[in-house]
């Protein structure tokens, strides 16, 4: 294999993408896959808002409305937000720590394909015509009573995708523990790497309960289990506990990388070192820890008793402290900085007030007595959209503009980027701010329509118009992507001109081995230090040029995930068809054969020779 770029046919290119173990390509695959599901979930959201824009609307039936809210929530959390964040983690974290790849390139690829086939499995429910309809939380008494195969698609699809997520989490943990460049101590890691690290640790401990919970649901619905069947001695509250022991850490798994993204952006475009870096790191770890201590605040009205409610209320409010530390650190990073309001910075500026509002309503709900009033009302819907859209989605859009040149080698148009922001930001507040009042005025969540003249008509109309504005913003972004991809104007290593971390020291997009020589990290924001000292190359080499070890591509991850996908259908149709059981067995056996094949072959990778690297470097003008 040569590092010199060669023109390849369509088939060869496709094969290359299907078998790739390169973290940058897998990052792009995650980004595209997540982007596709983001659009799908967005269309579901628009249908929900279209149904609610006037009283007694009959655009969709009550049953279809349940399908839409369930799939909107599930898709956005599991198939859009997380994979897109994984895309950025894959594309950027190895570069930020000066590594040539992740610790387990093969498992990285497997994680992506499991997410992909899991998401596909879940969404085939639309084509099959029986769609999950018990909400994204799928509370057991409701989900066991749901007829048809809808909930089966949910249980098995999320099981497959969740397995992929767990692998990705372990992979990032080991990558960050073992593969940091010389000098990259823990307290010199960029904040995005730190938040990835903590979020990955949370994945490691939060996803196994989801795995177990989904197995229980699968067994109860498809294999005669009785975990949640009250008449058989089961207990439906067990599902709620297991789901939220996973579910609450999950929202921090989403928001921590978002915090990391904004930390990078604030520091870059204020052209200042991040204020209070050690306290930022400490706050991240503390949020990660406390995130596991608060799950029962989703269950205040279940009747766990005043003692339990009090403990979880106090723990919930405690999380506001490290989060507040972060907010003040971002503000103080800008204080006295030389601020450039680029598109990513615009998102960061919009993020602070939006997220603070979501945080404050969160503390309100943390007060258990007040939560009895707010529970299951539109106030809750408003709150979690303020933290997820106002936090995570704004971060994703910011990172899309910020790292686009590093991932694709060309800049998104700044003007169009700002137009996207204006539409999205105004649309977002218009949609969800009014929903706080809808909650106060008594509108319950998850209802498919409402009677007129209850004081909700105008508020719902405003909310729907806001949703349309958000859609316009996303369409402008898509146009921006198409225009810049067609123009494809190549950019330099550091197109923003203010890059501080290692990803800006190498070309955009980087060569497949990232760094010709392992970089030496001399401090926090090492590239900034080098630039201030006049080193145009951006980094100092830690060692002379020598052979680089690289992993081989493999098709096995795709085949292995496909086996699970097939087995899922077998499990679902086991009782009602004769082919169900054989298909279940064949699918699982296929996956095990793939695992054995992987284990028995000796795949130790290959080396890029020193001469080849020197030739590459010479061609690019002798940098490094």
């Amino acid at each position, binding site marked *: 294999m040569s590092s010199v770029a060669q023109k390849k046919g369509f088939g060869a290119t496709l094969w290359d993408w299907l078998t790739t173990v390169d973290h940058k390509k897998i990052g792009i695959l995650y980004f595209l896959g997540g982007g596709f599901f983001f659009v799908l979930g967005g269309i579901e959201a628009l249908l929900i808002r279209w149904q609610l824009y006037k009283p007694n609307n009959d655009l969709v039936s009550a049953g279809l409305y349940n399908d839409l809210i369930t799939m909107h929530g599930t898709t956005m959390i599991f198939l859009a937000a997380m994979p897109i964040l994984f895309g950025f983690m894959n594309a950027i974290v190895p570069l930020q720590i000066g590594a040539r790849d992740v*610790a*387990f390139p093969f498992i990285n690829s497997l994680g992506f394909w499991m997410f992909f086939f899991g998401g596909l499995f879940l969404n085939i429910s639309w084509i099959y015509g029986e769609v999950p309809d018990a909400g994204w939380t799928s509370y057991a008494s409701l989900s066991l009573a749901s007829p048809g195969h809808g909930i089966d698609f949910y249980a098995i699809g999320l099981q497959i995708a969740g397995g992929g997520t*767990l692998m990705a989490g*372990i*992979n990032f*943990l*080991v990558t960050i*523990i*073992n*593969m940091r460049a010389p000098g990259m101590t823990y307290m010199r890691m960029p904040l995005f790497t730190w938040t990835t690290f903590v979020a990955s640790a949370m994945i*490691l*401990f939060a*996803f*196994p*309960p989801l*795995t*177990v*919970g989904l*197995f*229980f649901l699968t*067994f*109860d619905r498809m*294999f*005669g*289990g*009785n*975990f949640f*069947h009250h*008449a*058989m*001695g*089961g*207990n439906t509250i*067990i599902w709620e506990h*297991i789901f939220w*022991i996973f579910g609450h850490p999950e929202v921090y798994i989403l928001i921590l990388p978002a915090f990391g993204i904004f930390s990078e952006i604030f520091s870059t475009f204020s052209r200042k070192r991040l204020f209070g870096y050690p306290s930022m790191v400490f706050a991240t770890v503390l949020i990660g820890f406390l995130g596991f201590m608060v799950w029962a605040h989703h269950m205040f009205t279940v009747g766990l008793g005043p003692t339990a409610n009090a403990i979880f209320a106090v723990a919930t409010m405690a999380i506001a402290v490290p989060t507040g530390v972060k907010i003040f650190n971002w503000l103080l990073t800008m204080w006295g900085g030389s601020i450039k309001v680029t598109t990513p910075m615009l998102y960061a500026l919009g993020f602070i007030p939006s997220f603070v509002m979501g945080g404050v309503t969160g503390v309100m709900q943390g007060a258990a007595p007040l939560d009895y009033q707010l529970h299951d009302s539109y106030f809750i819907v408003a709150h979690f959209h303020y933290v997820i859209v106002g936090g995570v989605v704004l971060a994703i859009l910011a990172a899309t503009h910020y790292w686009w040149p590093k991932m694709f080698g060309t800049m998104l148009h700044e003007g169009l980027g700002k137009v996207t922001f204006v539409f999205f930001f105004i649309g977002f507040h218009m949609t969800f701010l009014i929903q706080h009042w809808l909650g106060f005025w008594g509108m319950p969540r998850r209802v498919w329509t409402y009677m007129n003249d209850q004081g909700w008509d105008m508020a719902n109309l405003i909310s729907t118009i806001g949703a349309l504005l958000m859609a316009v913003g996303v369409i402008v972004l898509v146009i921006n992507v198409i225009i810049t991809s067609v123009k494809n104007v190549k950019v330099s290593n550091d197109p923003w001109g203010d890059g501080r971390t290692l990803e800006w020291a190498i070309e955009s997009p980087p060569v497949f081995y990232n760094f010709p020589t392992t970089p030496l990290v001399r401090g926090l924001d090492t590239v900034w230090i080098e630039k201030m000292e006049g080193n145009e190359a951006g980094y100092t080499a830690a060692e002379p040029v020598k052979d680089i070890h690289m992993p081989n591509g493999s098709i096995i991850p795709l085949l292995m995930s496909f086996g699970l996908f097939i087995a899922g259908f077998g499990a679902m149709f086991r009782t009602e068809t004769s082919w169900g059981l054989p298909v279940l067995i064949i699918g699982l056996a296929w996956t095990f054969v793939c695992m*054995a094949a992987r*284990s*028995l072959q*000796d795949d*130790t*990778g290959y080396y890029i020779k020193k001469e080849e690297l020197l030739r590459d470097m010479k061609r690019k003008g002798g940098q490094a």
Partner: protein
Amino acid sequence: MDLNKKFTPETWPDHPEKATLEAKNKFVGFWLFLGGETILFATLFATYIALKNSGPSGFGYSTKELYELPLVFVMTMLLLTSSLTSVYAMYHLRNYNFKKMQLWLAITALLGLGFLMLEVYEFTHYVKDGFTYSNSAFSSSFYTLVGTHGFHVAIGLVWITLLIFRNAKRGLNLYNATKYYTFSLYWHFIDVVWVFIFTVVYLMGVIG
């Protein structure tokens, strides 16, 4: 990595399981994986404790009448011994004594197989008594907890059998040393989980 590099007991590194970067990655990654597995089993234990002895009205099964400690005691001894024999195997791995390592691993696998056969016997015995998977919440949680452990034992047996035969002709190198070592970590983990099952499910079920 050169698979054909030959070692002697003198040139063999002290910690062959983490002598290269790839090996270190696998070593750390496997420990983290076992951390996740711990949470998985913790969830299963919590569910079992919440649901034990509970079934439909007029339910006739209880932990006290169902479990037979002598059989479970034999199973426990088999699995604990197999953990010890895997330690012997790792001792020989460190000393670059391939033949003895393979022998002790084979003994480990046989003890594990014995455990698994007794577990299958135990389960069929209960099912014959009418204590089927669908019988009650108690039975579902029991079979899922203990069965998940048994499934882990079965996976471990397939894993070590493949390793023993795959490497039989070529001996130890720095590539497969990590594979052997992570297997032994896995085996100890399974053993620890069983100690908890023996205590929480069986001892506390019959005596507590």
